[in-house]
């Protein structure tokens, strides 16, 4: 079984890496074949939750992740309505993870794809991401918890897949109240069917393999287990090879697509994402996958990311290729402070219930 699991995570990583390059070739923005944070941000814009005209589009990939995961979980008998583990705190963490991601300009998956495209700014991001996860891992070791989830009514599991289906209907029907960029990254898009198909495949494979970018680094730090990290590495290697073959690889810091060169805020933005993802128990992609499996808490984190993306653009928090903004820097600091408070409270809570959780010798 162990060998089988390893093979599945390697295959999933390789396919995610390959599809990311394919989607970029098919029309998605450069080094952004797949970016969970950017695509949720585009969806927030498509719904009119923010009015940044260059990043509005109901990306079919994201509903694809959620529905693909749901179908795979149903087929494997793993679909299970559950929730009730600090839903509001998960919303807040999702919100601030998105803030960090938009200060860096990418989710952990896009960070790897950017590096595979030769964007060395992403290396600062990986250092920050690792630092954030390291901090999160030491909090987990001290007993940080958001509490237990419990079985819930099936409606809780269906809410986000239903929203995903609705988004797909909207992108196909394209009613006038839905926004779609005519210039900028939001106008760079793969054909709807390609994007949806890729999203479904990624969602299903990520569900089967438990692929998680944050989990990869976390398990290396916490238990020295390279299992999930091998998926991380597979994404990088396959995307790198395909980028080099297709002539898309360009090594350097300056002039990289949808990126800025401020190393400090690249580091801190991704540190925020790493810490938040460690506290949530998974990266933004993993939250979509869990939500598809019926995890209502992950659905709350997803909604937090959606609202966070809207605020990030409405309040000028998002970085641009020119660099981070003053508001973005302030918001990153606020995000880290809020996460520190959540962490403190989560450790306090675990101290009180520790005795009940581990019963001694029988």
């Amino acid at each position, binding site marked *: 079984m*162990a060998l089988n699991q390893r093979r599945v995570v390697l295959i999933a990583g390789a396919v995610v890496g390959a599809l990311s390059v394919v989607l970029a070739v098919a029309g998605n923005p450069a080094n952004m074949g797949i970016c969970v944070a950017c695509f949720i941000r585009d969806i927030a814009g498509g719904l009119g939750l923010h009015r940044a005209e260059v990043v509005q589009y109901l990306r079919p990939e994201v509903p694809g992740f959620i529905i693909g995961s749901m179908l795979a979980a149903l087929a494997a008998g793993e679909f299970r309505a559950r929730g009730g583990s600090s839903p509001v705190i998960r919303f807040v963490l999702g919100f601030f993870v998105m803030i960090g991601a938009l200060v860096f300009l990418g989710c952990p998956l896009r960070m790897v794809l950017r590096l595979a495209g030769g964007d060395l700014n992403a290396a600062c991001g990986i250092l920050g991401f690792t630092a954030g996860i390291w901090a999160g891992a030491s909090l987990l070791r001290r007993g940080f918890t958001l509490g237990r989830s419990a079985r819930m009514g099936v409606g809780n599991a269906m809410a986000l897949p239903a929203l995903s289906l609705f988004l797909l209907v909207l992108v196909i029907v394209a009613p006038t109240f839905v926004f779609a960029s005519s210039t900028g990254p939001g106008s760079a898009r793969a054909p709807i069917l390609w994007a949806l198909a890729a999203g479904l495949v990624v969602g299903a494979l990520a569900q089967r393999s438990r692929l998680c970018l944050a989990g990869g680094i976390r398990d290396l730090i916490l*238990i*020295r287990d390279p299992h999930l990290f091998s998926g991380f590495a597979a994404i990088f290697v396959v995307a790198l090879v395909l980028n080099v073959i297709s002539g898309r690889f360009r090594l350097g810091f300056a002039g990289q697509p949808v990126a800025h060169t401020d190393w400090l805020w690249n580091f801190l933005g991704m540190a925020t994402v790493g810490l938040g993802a460690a506290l949530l128990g998974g990266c933004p992609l993993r939250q979509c996958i869990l939500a598809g499996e019926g995890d209502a808490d992950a659905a709350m984190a997803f909604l937090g990311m959606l609202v966070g993306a809207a605020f990030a653009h409405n309040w000028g928090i998002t970085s641009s290729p020119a660099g981070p903004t003053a508001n973005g820097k302030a918001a990153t600091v606020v995000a880290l402070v809020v996460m520190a408070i959540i962490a403190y409270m989560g450790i306090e809570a675990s101290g009180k219930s520790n005795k009940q959780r581990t*019963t001694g010798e029988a």
Partner: protein
Amino acid sequence: MSHRVDARGLSCPQPVVMTRKALETIGLGIRTRASRGSEVSDDPGPLEVIEVLVDNRTAMENVSRFARHSGYDADVQAGEEGDDCYIVRICVKGRA
């Protein structure tokens, strides 16, 4: 002797962290596969079993993989409470 860890309903990686703590509590911690070879000649102490309760397959896989990766035998049983419970039994030769 048996220890029970109830990790049901907790998100990743808390079940693994709790399993690791339970191993440390009984004075063993993580061994590498390399150091495991000498185990046969050592005097094995009394048999200890750690039972970890989890409620989803991902956590079950993670805890079993962690146990094997740390050099212990682990097997999985369906829990007494139906679908939503797996029991990962980790067998440990204690050093009492």
